[in-house]
């Protein structure tokens, strides 16, 4: 797993997911709430879901990479 993350280019590209997750969560939250506190709470939950989903996909790909 660490060899997958350790290569410089891969690490750089993974970092680019962070601003995307933040922006998508904020905009998604803003389409469901009108006040800033509501938006932030929804954005936090959305970000948690997105990161969890990405982690699951990462885990699946990791297992496949071990098998193949």
């Amino acid at each position, binding site marked *: 797993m660490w060899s997958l993350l350790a290569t410089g280019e891969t690490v750089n590209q993974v970092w*680019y997911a962070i601003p995307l997750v933040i922006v998508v969560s904020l*905009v998604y939250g*803003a*389409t469901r709430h*009108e006040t800033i506190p509501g938006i932030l709470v929804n954005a936090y939950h959305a970000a948690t879901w997105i990161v969890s989903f990405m982690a699951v996909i990462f885990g699946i790909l990791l297992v496949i990479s071990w098998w193949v």
Partner: protein
Amino acid sequence: MPSTAQTTTHEDLNIDLRNPGWAAFWAWLLPGAGHLYQRRHAKGILFLVCILGTYFFGLNLGGGHVVYASWRPNDKRWQYFCQLGVGAAALPALVQSRLVRNGEEPLFGGLMAPPRFVSGTDNQFELQRDELARWHLDYHAYFDLGTLFTMIAGLLNILAIYDAYAGPMIMPLERSSDKPPPNGPAGRPAT
């Protein structure tokens, strides 16, 4: 002007959507502008910063080449339909496309201009003239990352446009269960 109230369990909403059609148009033309027109300033600024920030960040990642309009046989740039969601910020690509198609020199040093030649083959001689291949070679994965960022910005603005047109899509669990709201989606009377 429609102006009604919708109560939720934790947010009291009283949203004046003004003219929803115009708001949606402004929201497309400039992300967040529709909300600013409706005097929903916090959300307007949030959409403006988030969506345009993502768009220009992606545009910068790809050296200004990731947003272009082209529908030639070897280069059908379907991604532009997603990028067009950010409105005015993506429109220069149409002007640049027209200039290149007419054989003229693109403006602004080729920003948002389509590649002049795309071979679509593995022929080495043609690949040397292939401008799209050269962009991929120059920017590596950042060309695709930039394309992705600008596409997501355009798609996110579609959510913002809907929000400007119809108000926030309140989740069912957040609605007061005692009595249904008398009106449709926030601010507009049900028909």
